[in-house]
C-alpha cells in the first residue's frame, strides 16, 4: 500500500505545481504580481527494521519571489521619477509661456518702447501717439495674461494636492485593512497569503507615486507606512488621514495637513517626492519666483514710466499724470493670530530697491523679526516702520501679541493688477514741463530712454538691470531649471527602469519558464501515474496467485 501512497503524494505535488504555474501564467501581466512557486520537500520517512523508508513528496508551502531591497528601490525610484516628471511638466509650461514670441512679455515691451521712440520723432502726430497707447494696452494685457496663466497653474496644483491627498488616504486605509487580513492569515495557517501581500505592496508602490514613502515591516507581518521625513500614515490596522488645508496666510493656496481632523497642521514643508512633492516643490521654487519676478518687473516698469511721465506736459498743456495704475503690495495676517484687528501694512518706497521675495513679519519674545523668504535673510529686533529693500513695513498696533505673524507680498499681485490709466492720446506727456509747443519731444526722449536704464534689482543683489535684461534673466533661469529637470527626469526614469527590471528579474513571470515548468510537472504527474499503474499491476499479480 505504501507504494500507492508515495504515488499519490507525487500526484498531489505535481498537481499543486501545475496549479501554481497556471496561477503565474494567469497573472503574468497583473500589476504588482510576484511569481509564486511551491516549496517541495521529501515527506518524513518511516523507520523499518532495516532502515528509513521514504514516504514520497509533499509541498511545504507556496511562496512568492519577493525581495524587500529590490522593492524598496522601486518605491524610491518611483517617487523620484513621478516627482521630477510633474515638476518637469510644470516648468516646461512656464518655460514656453515666458519665452514664446507671441505669449511672452519681451516682444510687447520692445514694441511699446519702439512706439515711444517713434512718438519722440513725431510728437504732434495723433496717429503716432495712438500707437503708444495701443502698445501700452498690449503690454498691460500681456502682463495680466501671463500672470493669469500662472494663476491657472497655481489652481491646478491645488487640484493636485486635493486629489493626491484623497488618493493617499484611500490607499492608506486599504493597506491598514490588508495589514489586518494578512496578520490573521499568517496566525491562523502559518502560511503566507501571497496574493494579499502582493496587493499591499502594490498599494505601497501606488502611494509612492504620490509622495516619498517609507515602509517598516513589523514582526506580526503588518506594514507601518510613513511619508515625507517619517510622518506615519499607516500603523498596523490603523490609518491616519491627510487633509488638504488652506495655507495659514494665503487661503487660496492648499497645503497638506496632518493631525486631528478638526485642526490639521500643515506639513507641506517636510514633504518631498511623488507627484504631490513634485507639484509642491514646483510651486515653491518656480511658480512663486516667476510670478513674483513678473510682478516686480510690472511694478518697476510702471513706476519708472509713471514718474517720468509726470515730469512732462501733455498736448493740452497739463502736467502728465500716471500712465499706469499699479496694484499695491499686500500684507496678510496669519489666520492663527489671536486678534485679527491687529494688522500689518506695507508700501513701496523705491521700486529700484525692490526684490522679488516675500517677507515674513513675526513678533516673538518681545521683538519684531523680519525674514526675507528667498534667501532666508533675517533682520532681528527691528523697529517699525521698517524700511528696507524698497518697501516700508508697519503694523497698526503698539501692543502686539506674542507669536503674531504676517506674510508680506510686495510683488505677487502686481502683474495681475496692472491697468492703463491714460487712454486719451492728448494726455500723453511727451513735452517738457512747461511745454514749449506741440512738437516738444523732450520728455518723450526721456521716456524712450527708460528702457536703457538699470531699474530692476536682480535677486536682492546690488546690481540692477534693464527691464529687458531682467525679463531675460527670469526666462533663462526658468530655462536652465527646465533643462536641469529634464536631465534629472531622464536619470530618474532610467533608475526606475533599472530598479523595475531588477525586481522583475527576481519576481516577474517569464512565460517560457512557466511553459517549461508546466512540462516538468506534467511529466512528474505522468511518471507518478505510471508508478501507480505499476503498483496496481503488482497487486493484480498478488491477487492472481490465489486463483
Amino acid at each position, binding site marked *: 500500500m505504501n507504494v500507492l501512497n508515495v504515488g499519490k503524494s507525487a500526484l498531489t505535488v505535481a498537481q499543486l505545481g501545475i496549479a501554481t504555474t497556471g496561477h503565474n501564467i494567469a497573472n503574468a501581466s497583473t500589476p504588482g504580481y510576484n*511569481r509564486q512557486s511551491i516549496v517541495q520537500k521529501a515527506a518524513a520517512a518511516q523507520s523499518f527494521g532495516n532502515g528509513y523508508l521514504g514516504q514520497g513528496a509533499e509541498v511545504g508551502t507556496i511562496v512568492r519571489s519577493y525581495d524587500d531591497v529590490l522593492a524598496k528601490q522601486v518605491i524610491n525610484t518611483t517617487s523620484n521619477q513621478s516627482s521630477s516628471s510633474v515638476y518637469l511638466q510644470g516648468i516646461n509650461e512656464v518655460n514656453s509661456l515666458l519665452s514664446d514670441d507671441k505669449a511672452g512679455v519681451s516682444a510687447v515691451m520692445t514694441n511699446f518702447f519702439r512706439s515711444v*521712440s517713434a512718438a519722440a520723432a513725431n510728437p504732434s502726430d495723433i496717429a503716432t501717439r495712438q500707437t503708444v497707447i495701443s502698445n501700452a494696452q498690449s503690454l498691460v494685457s500681456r502682463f495680466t495674461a501671463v500672470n493669469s496663466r500662472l494663476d491657472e497653474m497655481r489652481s491646478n496644483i491645488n487640484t493636485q494636492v486635493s486629489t493626491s491627498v484623497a488618493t493617499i488616504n484611500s490607499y492608506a486605509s486599504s493597506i491598514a485593512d490588508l495589514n489586518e487580513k494578512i496578520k490573521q492569515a499568517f496566525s491562523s495557517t502559518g502560511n503566507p497569503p501571497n496574493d494579499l501581500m502582493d496587493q499591499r505592496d502594490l498599494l505601497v508602490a501606488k502611494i509612492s507615486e504620490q509622495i516619498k514613502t517609507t515602509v517598516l515591516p513589523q514582526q506580526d507581518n503588518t506594514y507601518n507606512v510613513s511619508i515625507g521625513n517619517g510622518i506615519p500614515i499607516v500603523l498596523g490596522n490603523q490609518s491616519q488621514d491627510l487633509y488638504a488645508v488652506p495655507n495659514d496666510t494665503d487661503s487660496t493656496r492648499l497645503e497638506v495637513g496632518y493631525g486631528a481632523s478638526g485642526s490639521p497642521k500643515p506639513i507641506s514643508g517636510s514633504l518631498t517626492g511623488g507627484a504631490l512633492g513634485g507639484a509642491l516643490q514646483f510651486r515653491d521654487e518656480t511658480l512663486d519666483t516667476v510670478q513674483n519676478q513678473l510682478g516686480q518687473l510690472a511694478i518697476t516698469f510702471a513706476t519708472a514710466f509713471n514718474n517720468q511721465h509726470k515730469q512732462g506736459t501733455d498736448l493740452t498743456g497739463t502736467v502728465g499724470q500716471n500712465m499706469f495704475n499699479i496694484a499695491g503690495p499686500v500684507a496678510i495676517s496669519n489666520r492663527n493670530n489671536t486678534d485679527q484687528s491687529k494688522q500689518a501694512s506695507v508700501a513701496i518706497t523705491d521700486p529700484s530697491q525692490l526684490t522679488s521675495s516675500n517677507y515674513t513679519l513675526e513678533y516673538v519674545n518681545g521683538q519684531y523679526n523680519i525674514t526675507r523668504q528667498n534667501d532666508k535673510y533675517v533682520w532681528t529686533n527691528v523697529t517699525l516702520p521698517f524700511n528696507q529693500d524698497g518697501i516700508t513695513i508697519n503694523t497698526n498696533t503698539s501692543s502686539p501679541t506674542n507669536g503674531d505673524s504676517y506674510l508680506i507680498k510686495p510683488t505677487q499681485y502686481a502683474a495681475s493688477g496692472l491697468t492703463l490709466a491714460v487712454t486719451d492720446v492728448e494726455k500723453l506727456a511727451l*513735452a517738457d514741463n512747461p511745454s514749449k509747443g506741440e512738437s516738444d519731444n523732450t520728455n518723450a*526722449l526721456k521716456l524712450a530712454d527708460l528702457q536703457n536704464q538699470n531699474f530692476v534689482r536682480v535677486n536682492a543683489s546690488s546690481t540692477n538691470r534693464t527691464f529687458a535684461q531682467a525679463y531675460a534673466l527670469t526666462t533663462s533661469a526658468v530655462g536652465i531649471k527646465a533643462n536641469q529637470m529634464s536631465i534629472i527626469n531622464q536619470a530618474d526614469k532610467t533608475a526606475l527602469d533599472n530598479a523595475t527590471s531588477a525586481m522583475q*528579474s527576481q519576481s516577474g513571470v*517569464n512565460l517560457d519558464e512557466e511553459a517549461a515548468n508546466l512540462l516538468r510537472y506534467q511529466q512528474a504527474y505522468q511518471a507518478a501515474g505510471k508508478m501507480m499503474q505499476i503498483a496496481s499491476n503488482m497487486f493484480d499479480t498478488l491477487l492472481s496467485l490465489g486463483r
Partner: protein
Amino acid sequence: MRLSTNTIYANGTNRLMGLQSDVNDLNEKISSGKKVRSPADDPVASARIIEINNNKSMKDTFAETRKTASSMLENYETNLSSVTDLVLNIKSSLTAAGNATYNDSQRQSIATELQGRLDSLISLANAKDSMGNFIYSGFTTDKAAFTSAGVFQGETSRMNLQIDDNRTMPTTFTGDSVFNANGNNLFANMQQAITLLNTPITDATSRTNFTNGLATALQNTDKSLDSILDTRAQIGSQLNEIQILDDTGDDISLQYSKVLSDLQDLDYTQALSDLAKKNTIMEAAQKSFVSTSKLSLFQFI
C-alpha cells in the same frame, strides 16, 4: 540574467517610445528650422539669443529714427537750397542797384522785384513738412515761424532725436538762428533795402546815404548768406554722420544676424541625416520587437 515577460515587453515599448520621441523632436526642429526653440533646449545659447534679439531691436529702432532724422534734415537742405538761390539773386539785384546811371524809377522797379523775393523768402521760412508742421517754428510747429512782416514768432528749441546708443542729434533748425543770425535779420535788412531803393536821390547827401545804405545792405546779405551756408554745411555733416552710423549699424545688424543664426538655426544636412538614421533604427527596433515577441515556448507545446 533572468528576464520576466513583462520586462521584455516593457523594454520593447520603452525603446520604441524613446525612438518615437527622438524622431518627433527632430521633426519639430526641422519644421521650425531652429535647434533652440526655448530656453530649456539650450539655456546658455538662449540667454545670448534673448540678449542679441533685444540689442538688435534697439539698433533697429535707432535705424528707424535715423531715417526720420535724415528725411527731416534733407527737407531743410532742399528748403535752404532754394533760400540760397533767392539770396544770391537778391545779392546780384542789390549790386546792380548800385549802378550810378540808374534813375529813381529804375531803382524802384528793383525795389518791387526785391519785394517779390522777400515774400518768397518769408514763404520759404514758413515752410511746412509732410506732416503739416512749420519747420522753423521750434516746438510750436502749429504756428508759422514768421509774421508776414518777417518778424520771428516761433519758439527757439530744437528737437533732438536719439539716433544711436549714446548719440542724440538736433534735427530741427529754428527761424531765428537761420534767418536772424547774430542780430542780423535778413528780412528786416531786405525791408530796409527796399525802402532805400524807393527813396529818390535828390542831392549829394541823399546820394551818399544811398551808397552807404546799399553797402550795408550788401554786407548784411552776405552775413545772412554765410549763416545759411553754415547751416547747410552743418546739415551736410549731420547727414554724413547719419550715413556712417547707418553703415556701422548695418554691419552690426549683419553680425547680430550671423550670431543669431549660429546660435539658433538648424543645420539641415545634419538634421535630415539624423532623421534618416533614427528612422532606420526605429524600423529595425520594430522588426526586432515583433520577431522577439513571437518567440514562445508555448508555440511548441
